[in-house]
């Protein structure tokens, strides 16, 4: 029961404008990632939602109510910090009990010693302990409750931070790059755990990361920010397959999407010497985005065809470097029409892949593009959409 709305949030620090009017609606139970390069304002936005920072203008609504005057504790949110922010002088159990102590005890009973000697403090003790133990069991840290944070590994600290957030039973869960301090292996593991936690708890998760892989794998929706502006909000697949702008296309996908220059004229898109019959609403130079895994190399054996387009369009490619990634290879090179522009091709190996000798014969390759998988952008970076659907329907009818 937590629907969160951001209305035209603006924020600047001194002369530096960090957020230029962000509006975003987060549905109840959704897992939304705020993703973008460092300095794009994603953490600031999260801190504004948490109430740790006040926006210069705009509004934060939770279930339709403005939260600008509400203290962080009154927003029904929990937050996991990048470096966990555990209290180093408290044991794991005390760390996790903190939100409960604050919520259940009156001020006088929270003062030192008073918790043990006042009736209010003593009466709340069993309930607090039960709450902590329940969450600790759920996160499998119940054997660590007496340790200090300094005695824990990174992954364990991460779980304690999650536990401290969970124990207060929040409606919204805010996470600020929670995996960035873990090593690569643990990161994948905790990633799954957080996804499972989201599924089992049904809470709203707002997750800040600079890592597009985290954002893509975990979220139900991704909000991509750049220099304080929201570029696009959508499902991971929307952002990958149907980006609104060149910036979105370049941010999502690894390795990065290849951009090459071309021309649109007379119902054709011309790339180098190849003309592809696609009608765009513009005439003149355009930019063409080609995902590395959509380029097919038909004349080399040992590779799985990237697509089975019947009318592929051939393009001359010059190979410069081949990297073996295990199940697939990454070929660096350039199209013949734009030799200074590095292009990467990701090709899957088949069982007949011949190792380094596969490409021994020549550096010049013929590659095939699938017109349906090309993304077109105007000189301003805006997406240009050809009218595929009507064209296809016309064909089939």
């Amino acid at each position, binding site marked *: 029961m937590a629907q969160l709305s951001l209305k035209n949030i603006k924020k600047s620090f001194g002369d530096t404008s960090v957020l230029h009017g962000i509006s975003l609606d987060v549905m109840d139970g959704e897992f939304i990632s705020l993703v973008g390069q460092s300095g794009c304002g994603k953490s600031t936005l999260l801190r504004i939602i948490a109430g*740790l920072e006040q926006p210069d203008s705009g509004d934060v609504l939770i279930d339709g109510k403005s939260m600008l005057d509400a203290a962080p504790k009154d927003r029904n949110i929990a937050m996991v910090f990048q470096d966990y*922010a555990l*209290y180093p002088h408290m044991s794991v159990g005390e760390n996790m009990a903190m939100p409960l102590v604050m919520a259940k005890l009156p001020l006088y009973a929270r003062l*030192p010693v008073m918790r043990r000697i006042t009736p209010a403090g003593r009466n709340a003790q069993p309930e607090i302990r039960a709450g902590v133990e329940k969450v600790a069991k759920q996160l499998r840290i119940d054997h660590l409750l007496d340790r200090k944070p300094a005695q824990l590994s990174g992954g364990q600290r991460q779980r304690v931070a999650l536990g401290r957030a969970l124990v207060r039973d929040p409606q919204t869960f805010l996470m600020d790059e929670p995996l960035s301090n873990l090593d690569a292996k643990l990161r994948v593991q905790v990633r799954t755990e957080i996804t499972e936690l989201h599924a089992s708890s049904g809470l709203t998760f707002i997750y800040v990361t600079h890592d597009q892989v985290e954002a893509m794998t975990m979220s139900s929706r991704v909000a991509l920010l750049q220099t304080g502006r929201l570029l696009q909000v959508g499902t991971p697949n929307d952002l990958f397959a149907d980006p609104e702008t060149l910036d979105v296309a370049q941010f999502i996908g690894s390795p990065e999407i290849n951009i090459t220059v071309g021309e649109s004229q007379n119902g054709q898109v011309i790339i180098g010497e190849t003309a592809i019959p696609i009608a765009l609403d513009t005439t003149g130079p355009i930019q063409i985005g080609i995902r590395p895994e959509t380029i097919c190399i038909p004349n080399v054996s040992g590779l799985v065809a990237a697509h089975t387009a019947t009318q592929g369009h051939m393009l001359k490619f010059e190979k410069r470097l081949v990297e073996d990634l295990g199940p697939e290879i990454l070929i660096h090179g350039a199209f013949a029409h734009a030799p200074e522009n590095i292009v990467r091709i990701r090709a899957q190996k088949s069982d007949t892949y011949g190792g380094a000798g596969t490409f021994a014969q020549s550096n010049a390759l013929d590659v095939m593009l699938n017109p349906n998988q090309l993304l077109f952008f105007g000189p301003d970076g805006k997406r240009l959409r050809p009218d595929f659907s009507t064209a296809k329907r016309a064909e089939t009818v």
Partner: protein
Amino acid sequence: MAVSKLQRAQTRLAYLLVLPATLLILAIYIVPIIFVFLGSLTDYTLVSDHYAFVGFENYQKMFEDEAFSNALNNTFFYALLFLPGAFIISLVIAIAIQEQKQFRSVLEVLYFLPVTSTLAAMALVWSALMDSGQGVINNTLQTIGLARVNWFGNEDIVLVSLAIISLWSVIGFNMVLFLAGLTAIPKNLYEAAAIDGADHPLDKFFRVTWPMLGPTAMFVAVTSSITAFKLFDTVAILTQGGPDRASEVFLYLAFLEGFEYFNMGYSAALSLFFLGIIFLFALVQALFSDRNVQY
């Protein structure tokens, strides 16, 4: 065998490297302490070349001496006045300055100024301020309708006056120590606390600030205690132990015995007792700070 030769050479080098520091420590601390100890076993006086070993008679005398217990009482009473102030006032000022966004460095400098001044010279300024007849403080008290206070002439008040002067001189120093401790507390702990619901100033203080300040607080407490027991210069300049020995503190008594009454042997015994007290404080601090290494 080559290894052990190398090892021996390294050991020799290591001893050679610590030699200068060892010699300095010996010359400045250890040897004088031994001489003071040996002197404390004699009846040596500054006015006579003849002296004899008297064993532990000086120490025995110490515990029978009424002046000794008086000085000890005065010192402890003074410490009782001085320590809470030196600790709490500096902490409160440090927290207040920490929360300031503007003028922070100006305030820091202002509070630190007394530390940079010479206390002996400033003692004269204070004696003028606290003068029972013409002093600004008494005149002010009278103007607002309060009674005049005989700051240095009243047996019951003289230690309070001395404590006020010492506080003035030491608060800036302790404040800087506390500020350093406060600055080292990660900001996001306060943010985590705010989200956990600990946003009341008392909660913030007792849940985050105070525990995180532990090592700093210990250091301030120990150095302030040592400062309290070292009280000497203001006494020597302003009261000379008076009135009626009400401000005769421990170090001043050792000075009196040695350089006014020329009982060097007895004075040496007093000094060693004083050293023992300081050593205890230092020990407490060393033990405590070791246990806090983990954060």
